């Protein structure tokens, strides 16, 4: 697709991976409302189509993020369809219910496959492009859950913690190349993922979270908590000594 780009009114192009519901769907709507041309990816076709139908200028691509082999070709196809790429947001994530005494490798594997390896498959492609083109924004929706290894969801905490570290590495590689890397750490957002959370508070809507995330990406923020007050909570939690942390019910 050959598109019209106006020097003073550029149409930005974005990819949202994991866009059929929750924050991803809200991101598609928010980016679209800001004038972006959006490629929305998700596994569930019907839900994805509904999201794209609800947004101006969004195109659906049905894709399972664990289908890593197809990513390089699909990425190139989408970039060509969009007419370039300015922003990519990796939002795909799963958090199956895990009991306090459950050690299910299948569930852990699924979380690592979707939350981490899928991100690496997609964001490596974008990183390679932005490394060459000296610009662009890469964002991944990690979680406050990645800041500390709580007892509740070992696999989930690991996947998000590793994702945050991966993003930091990308940032350290690409900052000097002009690309911006944003790690998003939402607290409790009113999405289907929240169903498996053991306790919730400060819950914000997906639309509100998406607005804050896009603001952060456009402002070139490095790490952003959504909502912002989580930064201070996590600052404290991160500094609680381990021997105390393991005795606490958080």
């Amino acid at each position: 697709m050959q598109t019209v780009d106006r020097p003073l009114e550029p149409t930005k192009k974005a990819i949202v991976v994991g866009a059929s519901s929750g924050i991803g769907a809200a991101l598609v709507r928010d980016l679209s409302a800001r004038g972006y041309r959006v490629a929305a990816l998700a596994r569930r076709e019907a839900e994805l189509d509904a999201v794209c139908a609800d947004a101006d200028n969004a195109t659906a691509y049905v894709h399972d993020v664990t289908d890593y082999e197809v990513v390089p070709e699909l990425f190139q196809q989408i970039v060509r369809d969009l007419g370039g790429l300015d922003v990519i947001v990796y939002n795909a994530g799963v958090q199956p219910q895990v009991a306090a005494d459950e050690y299910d490798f299948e569930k852990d594997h699924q979380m690592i496959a979707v939350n981490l390896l899928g991100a690496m498959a997609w964001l490596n492609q974008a990183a390679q492009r932005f490394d060459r083109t000296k610009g662009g924004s890469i964002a991944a929706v990690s979680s406050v859950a990645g800041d500390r290894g709580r007892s509740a969801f070992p696999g989930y905490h690991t996947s998000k913690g590793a994702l945050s570290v991966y993003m930091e590495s990308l940032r350290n590689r690409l900052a000097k190349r002009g690309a911006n890397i944003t790690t998003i750490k939402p607290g409790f957002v009113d999405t289907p993922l929240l169903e498996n959370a053991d306790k919730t508070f400060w819950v914000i809507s997906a639309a509100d979270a998406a607005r804050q995330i896009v603001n952060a990406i456009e402002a070139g923020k490095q790490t952003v908590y959504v909502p912002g007050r989580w930064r201070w909570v996590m600052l404290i939690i991160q500094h609680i000594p381990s021997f105390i942390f393991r005795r606490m019910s958080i």
Partner: protein
Amino acid sequence: MGKLKIKKHTNSLALTDSRLEKVTSWGGASRSEGWVFRPTTAAQLADVFALARREGVSVGLRGGGNSYGDAASNQNGIVLDLTRMKRILEWQPETGIVTVEPGVTLRELWEYTLADGWWPPVCTGTMYITIGGGAAMNVHGKNAFKVGTLGEHILEFDLMLSNGETITASRDENSDIFHAAIGGFGMLGCFTRLTLQMKRIYSGEVAVQIINSRSLSEMFAQFRDNVPTSDYLVGWVDCTATGKMLGRGEVHQANYLTAAQDRYPQATMQRDHQHLGDTLFGIVPRSAMWRFMQPFWNRPGIPWVNRGKYWSSRLKDGGRYRQPHAQFHFLLNYFPDWQKATGKGGLIQYQPFVPAAHAEAVFTTILQRCQAAKLAPYLGVLKRHRADPFLMTHGLDGYSFALDFKVTDSNRPQLVALCRELDALVLANGGRFYPAKDSVLRPEVAQAYLGDSAVQQFRMLKKRCDPDDIIQTNFWRRVFVPLAD
């Protein structure tokens, strides 16, 4: 007896990530990404066209990359950077006829011919444009009122079409393509060979006179007085001055020297004599000057910069001196990368061309509207022009007013709105615009100033030369593709 090995030419080009590059406008206000290829031969050029056809992507042509806006950008397509096709193919010092490849720069051209007593007939404000790019944009210089645009000095060219075929065009052969490809912003094909008539000179210097102008009105009067007797005329305008001093500035008037006027032509017509100098006051490297300019390139600072320049001009009023050609022409190269001083948002230039009868009134109104919108241009340059025979030309019997605007994230909407307002004013007075400088032209404005017939004729030639629309740029898609609907 050994066998003669014949190396077969193979086309193994591909659209790989290693070809991806950021491609910025000269003004830095817009950027794009594309697969950049830098062919060195016509055969390699044909290979790139073949690749584009195979992959279904477009090809945009790029010379020195000095277009202020998007005329040399091709977002997410192939960018053919022609700067490595830079051989001077033939030089006839007796007649001043030179044949070059498209990537030869103005600098390389004058450095080659100067010692033989020839200078480029038309020089832009930078010496780093390529001849191919200059022909595609049909550039002009400070002598546009006298000798017209660069195209008027091109005798013949070879043009490679997007199917790999090469045609020759001149005023006698393929005349329609000759008059459309020159000034056709690279949309019909890629120049692979251009033949130009150079200008005979008898000295490596020009005689320059500084004329202070206390208002735009006075500057117009000075232009009218000096046009008949000048070889070059250019006016710098302080766009921040208001009231009676609106449009005040300085005119540089220059003439070639005759053989009798230069006692040492063999010395002045040497390349070293044209050197712009590496340092300012012998201390500050010119390449670092933009960093010193940066603190002043903002709304509070720029009026002071303009005031300083204006009052120094008052002191120099009437001054006469001789100056090497390069120092007179290439003001944009005095401080390399000076446009970076405008900051990360870059700059755009808005350059309307208005018939002589209306120019003073229109440019006065333009200055007033810019100031009312609190978007006074940081730099203004007035030039006199004449009409030329090229289909898509910006040239007319009148004046142009080049206005540099700093772009920031917050002023983009106001800048777009202001330019739209100015477009209406320029169009209503029979004005025209210039693709090499443009960032804001809209399809309906282009159609209005060029006329339906010219646009239609150009589209038919485009269809003939490039039926599959392989050759495109951001500028083409922005301004002309919508006109086809």
